[in-house]
């Protein structure tokens, strides 16, 4: 039986009080609750403080380039669909640098769980605006305030009918852990946007700010109702709804691809007789 100890405990490079600590804890809890052993799991991450998370637990890891974790995860999952593939990175990585991959991942619907640490700021590069920063937020790079409208990942994902769309808050670890567990269990692409404070660079969206607003969707809320989900996805103010916002049972990419029905790509032999026959087609 896998335990939380199997996932290890490591020293981190994060600031004291960072939301990353509780997200890391929630991730470990979810993996254990999903009865996954470290060698069965592959984390793919990008660049940023969030992307360092998988270095602080035991699992397979590919820590790639800024913005490019989704394509790497796509390739790895298709090569070996038996792996549970988790993608973990920040708002800049997924919604900024890798925005096109975010859209493509929703469309493809490969069985990946994307965990976005969303603190509405660039932390590692010391406090520039992120795609989710509020309009008007003043930073050293945006001294007159952010002039672009913030990206709403939940609304975009719901609009594109992503299979699983959830929002969590780092301050509600058990709730978040359940969302991650549900995301892992979901067959197809799962987005979990995690709101978290950046203690060093975001002095507006603080722990208290989020705590006051984050409110789980009601028990009677039906996440399969797309219209209702669109309304909830646009709610952002004194109340910020968290929980599973939308879900459907779209067939995952892997099941559309005939080649993968024969099993993983990894470890296959070359059918040299077939190859010879196909090359004979050039005669």
């Amino acid at each position, binding site marked *: 039986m896998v335990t939380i100890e199997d996932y290890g405990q490591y020293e981190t490079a994060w600031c004291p009080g960072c939301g990353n600590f509780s997200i890391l804890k929630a991730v470990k809890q979810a993996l254990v609750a999903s009865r996954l052993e470290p*060698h069965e799991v592959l984390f793919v991450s990008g660049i940023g403080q969030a992307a360092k998370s998988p270095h602080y637990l035991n699992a397979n890891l*590919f820590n790639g380039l800024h913005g490019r974790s989704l394509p790497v995860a796509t*390739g790895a999952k298709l090569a070996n669909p038996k792996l549970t593939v988790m993608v973990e990175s920040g708002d800049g990585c997924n919604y900024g640098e890798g925005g096109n991959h975010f859209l493509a991942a929703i469309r493809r619907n490969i069985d990946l769980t994307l965990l976005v640490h969303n603190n509405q700021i660039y932390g590692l590069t010391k406090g520039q605006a992120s795609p989710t920063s509020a309009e008007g937020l003043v930073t050293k790079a945006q001294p007159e305030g952010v002039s672009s409208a913030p990206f709403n990942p939940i609304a975009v994902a719901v609009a594109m009918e992503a299979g699983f769309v959830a929002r969590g808050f780092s301050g509600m670890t058990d709730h978040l852990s359940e969302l991650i567990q549900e995301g892992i269990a979901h067959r197809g692409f799962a987005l979990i946007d995690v709101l978290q404070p950046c203690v060093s660079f975001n002095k507006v969206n603080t722990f208290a700010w989020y705590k006051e607003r984050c409110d789980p969707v009601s028990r009677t809320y039906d996440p399969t109702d797309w219209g209702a989900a669109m309304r909830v996805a646009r709610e952002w103010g004194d109340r910020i709804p968290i929980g599973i916002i939308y879900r459907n049972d779209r067939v995952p990419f892997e099941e559309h*691809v005939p080649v993968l029905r024969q099993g993983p790509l990894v470890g296959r032999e070359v059918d040299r007789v077939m190859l010879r026959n196909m090359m004979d087609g050039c005669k």
Partner: protein
Amino acid sequence: MRDDTMNVLIGGEAGQGLVTVGQLLAKSLVRSGYSILVTQTYQSRIRGGHNSFAIHTAVDKVIAPQESVDLLVALDAETVALHQGNLSSGGLIVVDSALEVDGDSFLQVPFKELAQDTFSNIAALGVVGYLLGLEQGLMATALDDFFGRKQRQVLEENRRVLVEAMAWAASHERSGHQLPKIANPVQHLMMSGNEAIAFGSLSAGLRFCSFYPMTPATSILLNLAAQAKRMGVLVEQAEDEIAAINMAIGASFAGAPSMVATSGGGFALMAEGVSLAAMTETPLVIVVAQRPGPATGLPTRTEQADFEFVLHAGHGEFPRAVFAPGTVEECFHLTRKAFELAEQYQGPVFVLTDQFLADSYRAVPPFDVEHLAPVKVGAATAGSLPYKRFAVTETGISPRLLPGLSRHLVVSDSDEHAEDGHITEDLSVRRQMVEKRLRKGEGIRAQVVPPEMDGEQDPDLLMVSWGASKGAVQEAASRIRSGGKRVATLHFSQVWPLVPGQFMDLLESADTVVSIEGNAFGQLARLIRRETGFYIKKQVLRYDGLPITPEAILRDVSR
């Protein structure tokens, strides 16, 4: 015009079916036992413009394209205007009788009568086939094979047009264009450079290929996609080239031999990924089919100007190998070799071609695929425990386990990392890791395919070349040689790393050295200078978008 060789050029607008005619004629020639070399030129448009499909064919092996045309099949007036000047003496122009032309060199064919317009390309095929002396039965079979999956009615109509066109040609016979008959022809494959790359990768064990369409690389992916299901390969169109290379890296990391194929602009987007493959020591084959730049350049033409780019693409320092096939056979074998090196040395390996070779059909003997082993993926054992993905070794090669296939955890990082793969800022580890990665370069160097030397010792003239111009240079050399000069050629099919010991003696023994390249800088020449100090002053450079031909070389060398 010689009687055992013919250069047939079919020209017309895009959308007139000239590639179909070209492929069918080429196929019929190959099945009749002739050698072929196809040069395709086309414009960046779907309809209209001027495209051409030239088949240089002969009884003996054809190695180079030819500029002078013996048989010009003009599907429109523009083709006549553009190519008439290249007609060899005794050459013939086949045109529609509706076209107003004058002179002995024209054969006016009533295409509309023979084919009711829709199949006039097949009528042209019939006439040309007759003129070259091809058998009607063989051509009809080629037609059936080509249109096999289409409706029966279309098939029968095509056959009828072919037969009528050949009969028409017989009754208006013009002598002097028939190729000598070949009794009991040996079966060859008709294959383009891009097809050979696709087959080479399959034979090496390709399992994953991600791409974003870009001329002239696209047909590699199309060939793979057509065979993917039966060969157990996943071919995925990515949202952009950045995604394509990162997906391929992810798939390779998880144990699927992977390849990407693109051209200059797409490769520019992949550059960061090249560096990632190197840092994470992930095997990856990258095919770059060159076309003229900068930027969008001439999207459908040929050039050899991205060599320096490919050589230096990717930030930071790491070893790499760059192959530059000179023939269709080399496209196949060097792609295989690229997979072997990528797997053995765990990093990016390049196959650099160009539009000319990518689209050039040739007659090639069948490959012995049953006896060509695919690459072995990953290490058999973890080595010393606990498992360290980036264990520092004497060769620089660390045991590469695949994630999820054992209880060992596989950790890779684009950041500098310790032996266990985790991020580090320990600067002594940094130094060790740089040196470990670079040590792999020594192994790559020890396996370099030596440049091919051909011709006389201590030559008066030595011609240095690389990549797709191989045949044209050899053909030009043989013509200069027949004029009494001592000539040799030095051709590179692997352009990086360079091993001076393999070629310096020859360079130094020649009276005159001339480099022949499809770019404006003389990129190989200046690399040789950088690596050896040897300065090749005389250069023949072509950068007008057309392939290097023997005629072009002769014009410049004699200057």
